[in-house]
């Protein structure tokens, strides 16, 4: 791969666009720049097919005979691909492809091979609007949606044209709600990986502030977060990395300079649901749940699994829908299970024991013991340990693991209506896994 970052890149983000099905047949193409020859495209697709069929899934293929490469993303049963000059801004191309998928998914509910045949006219229309000559123009499905649909039937749409070119391209004029409300969900997802020695090799906390706005007119919203969160997010540059939030990304509607200077999040929200900001933090010192799982082979034909679950969060909080998947030996049979709380189901088709606990309080401990029988071969075997870890999923409502809190959310509109803000917190697991201890 050529240099992608240090060198400045100025070539267009994409040259042509293609949709292929799972057997690498072209379903639809749109060539914006007329640079790619048929032979070159054929070579690229051949190479891509060869790679994928041989288990190589690198998302960029290069054509040795020209300075062209193909970047692709798989989505459901189709491949979405762009060709571009080698050395272009690959990040922009991939982001663009993902945005296109978002746009198409928003249009067709389910973006699959079937929907391309059903909607090829609208796809061509959209492709005409999202890119000109290889430069992305507008990839916001909310605005595009209004834009293409209305234009397809009527001529007069002056205010939408202006929306496509101005700074607030995400919101159209003249929205009206009888009851003005705004819902803010603070969702944190934590992921953790603990290896066989009890070491946390990966521990990460990401958060999303998802906003659902039902507001009239062109409102300005001011959102203030508690000191701890803002300090770390880099308002005062000296404090970077010392606080809880390590990196914050804002929706394009947020005034970044205002955040930098005053620590206040000011924005004019798009209509409907969107992610206002996402952030990443260093994990809180302790994980929310801890699993100590071990396995022993006793005798020649039984294997025992012991799993201890301890909840480490505050006692007044509650974790719900705790689900623990314990991988067991593939050839094991007839489990004997004992557990102190919750229910256990053995799913031989996936080789797992699933332990579910509806609600558990903080600072508690639970234990599961399972004995499974193995086909006896008469010799003591040394079993190669499984590479699949014990996986856990859970939710802890009404709290954030990072300690982030909303101080206030204010809506300011010329009309002067009062809007009701609702705020809700939840912390969930995302990829929480523990290896069996050695």
């Amino acid at each position, binding site marked *: 791969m050529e240099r992608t970052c240090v060198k400045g890149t100025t070539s267009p983000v994409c040259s042509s666009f293609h949709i292929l099905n799972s057997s690498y047949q072209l379903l639809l193409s749109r060539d914006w720049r007329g640079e790619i020859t048929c032979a070159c495209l054929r070579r690229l697709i051949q190479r891509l097919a060869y790679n994928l069929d041989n288990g190589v899934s690198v998302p960029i293929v290069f054509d040795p005979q020209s300075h062209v490469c193909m970047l692709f993303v798989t989505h459901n049963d189709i491949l979405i691909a762009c060709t571009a000059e080698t050395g272009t801004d690959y990040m922009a191309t991939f982001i663009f492809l993902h945005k296109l998928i978002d746009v198409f998914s928003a249009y067709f509910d389910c973006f699959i091979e079937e929907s391309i045949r059903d909607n090829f006219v609208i796809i061509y229309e959209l492709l005409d609007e999202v890119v000109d000559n290889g*430069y992305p123009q507008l990839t916001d499905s909310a605005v595009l949606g209004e834009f293409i649909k209305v234009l397809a039937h009527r001529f007069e749409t002056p205010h939408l044209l202006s929306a496509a070119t101005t*700074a607030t391209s995400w919101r159209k004029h003249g929205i009206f709600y009888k009851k003005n409300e705004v819902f803010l969900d603070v969702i944190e997802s934590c992921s953790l990986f603990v290896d066989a020695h009890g070491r946390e090799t990966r521990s990460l906390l990401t958060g999303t502030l998802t906003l659902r706005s039902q507001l009239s007119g062109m409102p300005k919203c001011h959102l203030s977060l508690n000191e701890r969160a803002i300090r770390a997010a880099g308002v005062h540059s000296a404090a970077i990395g010392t606080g809880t939030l390590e990196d914050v990304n804002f929706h394009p509607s947020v005034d970044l300079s205002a955040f930098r200077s005053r620590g206040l999040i000011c924005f004019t929200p798009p209509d409907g649901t969107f992610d206002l900001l996402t952030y990443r933090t260093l994990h809180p010192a302790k994980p929310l749940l801890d699993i100590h799982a071990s396995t022993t082979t006793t005798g020649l034909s039984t294997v025992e699994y012991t799993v201890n679950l301890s909840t480490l969060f505050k006692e007044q909080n509650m974790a719900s829908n705790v689900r623990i998947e314990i991988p067991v030996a593939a050839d094991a049979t007839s489990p004997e299970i004992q557990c102190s709380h919750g229910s256990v189901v053995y799913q031989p088709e996936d080789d797992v024991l699933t332990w579910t606990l509806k609600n558990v309080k903080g600072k508690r401990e639970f234990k599961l013991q399972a004995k499974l029988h193995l086909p006896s071969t008469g010799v003591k075997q040394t079993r190669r340990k499984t590479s699949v870890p014990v996986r856990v999923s859970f939710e802890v409502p009404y709290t954030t693991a990072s300690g982030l809190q909303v101080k206030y959310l204010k809506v300011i509109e010329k009309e002067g209506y009062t809007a009701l803000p609702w705020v809700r917190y939840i912390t969930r697991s995302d990829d929480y896994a523990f290896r069996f201890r050695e």
Partner: protein
Amino acid sequence: MPRDSKYFSSSKKGEVAEWRQDLKTSDKVLLKTTVKRIIAAMTVGKDVCPLFLDVINCMQTEDIELKKLIYLYAINYARSNPDIAILAVNTFVKDSQDPNPFIRALAVRTMGCIRVDKIVEYLCDPLNLALRDPDPYVRKTAAICVAKLHSINSELVVDRGFLQQLKYLSVDENPMVVANSISALVEIQNGESSEIIDSQCLSAVIASLDVCTEWGQVAILNCLAAYKCVDGSEAKKVIECALPKLQHANYAVVLACIRLIINHLQVERSDELLKRIVPPMVTMLNAEAEIQYVALSSIEDIMNQFPSIFHETYKAFFCKYDDPAYVKYKKLDILVKVTNEGNVADILVELREYSGEVDIEFSRKAIRSIGACALSVPAFSQTCVDALLIIIDTRVNYAVQESIVVLKDIFRCYPGKYESVVTPLCRSLECLDDPDAKSSLIYILGEYAGRIDSTLDLLQTFVDTIQDEPTSVQLQLLTSTVKFFLKCPSQQAKTLVQKILKFATTDSEHPDLRDRAYVYWRLLSHDTDTAANVVTANIPLPS
């Protein structure tokens, strides 16, 4: 939503003739259906070029959806019908003066895509008007159209003064127009961004950065990244203005911003600024796999310039078990580069974990990485060797073989330090089938001939099957046997050397092997001391 798939279904013979008939209809619904069928046929790759004239004749329509479809058809087939394409010009020119700005923009955009020399001349006048259009949507389309025109006929762009107009537009009041003009200028100047912005218009370009759409920001940031600042204070100003973009939700904007910072750091060095780019880069490693891949490649690039900035965040490069292979491999490459004395212990534990992965190629690479750590952090070479011994102890065949290759380099790098490892190594050997591993073991045998009890037996077995080995192994075996003889001379060793020299000089057809054998033969027949000096001389350390 109406289903378009029905347009694909007709496969009757003579459909082209039927469509030609249908295109003459005055029934608007039938006309639209027919054009959709034609576009559907075009989409699946059927040749509908013969209908060109008939389709072009329908171009003058009030129905915008139909117009778009016909324009699309025209773009696809105009090149193969340049003479008829001229007929479409009238409609284009008329549309470019339509009261609806959307139609004006559509006409200009489409004309630019028809890359036919004869049409280009007619494009100039509408384009000239569009560049001054009161509606920004038309102006932003026209700006890009200048770049299209330039790729077909660059002289026209200069003659008609479009370049100058584009420069005016690059300070337009509308940010999208600014972004597109800059994109077009960059393309026309063939990437020489330095000629587009000068110190005077710099402030205007920076100002438009804040109000622009995300894709416009990417274009402007990329252009600013290539801008050559006149002095340090200007570089500082550019960086300061771009800095808030590190927090943008679109990673393309973030990376473009990082690119800008790095380019201008050449002028205005600042470690504090450099640190700012680390958290956003690490955040990208939680995005979709493709994004991660590009982010990792970029991190590698950045590390070539600033080797140590990612050392603290080494945990971000630990592989998840469900990462796709191409992400894992990149992470592994970077992990080796971020090792230092502070983190090597953690990284080694992780690498050992990978050595047991189901993906054999990946686990071999992990073992090779352990070797790389041993070479790059000398203080921890013992830990690395211990890790390798644990892997060897598993007796998993490919892992043992890979460990041999790695140990050979460690032996070479730290001569005389880890000889005790050789014995357990030989004990774990069950079956060697990888040529690299074989060569490495044979190398070790020759190098440590005096200290391994079973050297003679092992060499004997290799020599017995030498004709089946690849040349690389044969060459190594020849050298090691001679070394062994020189280090521990005995009657059996002598017989062995004679046997292999005979094979190499008479049976082998490989010139390198024969030449090397002759050299050894002559050295040995002349004087064994001189031979020993030459053959067992120390070789340089691996780098």
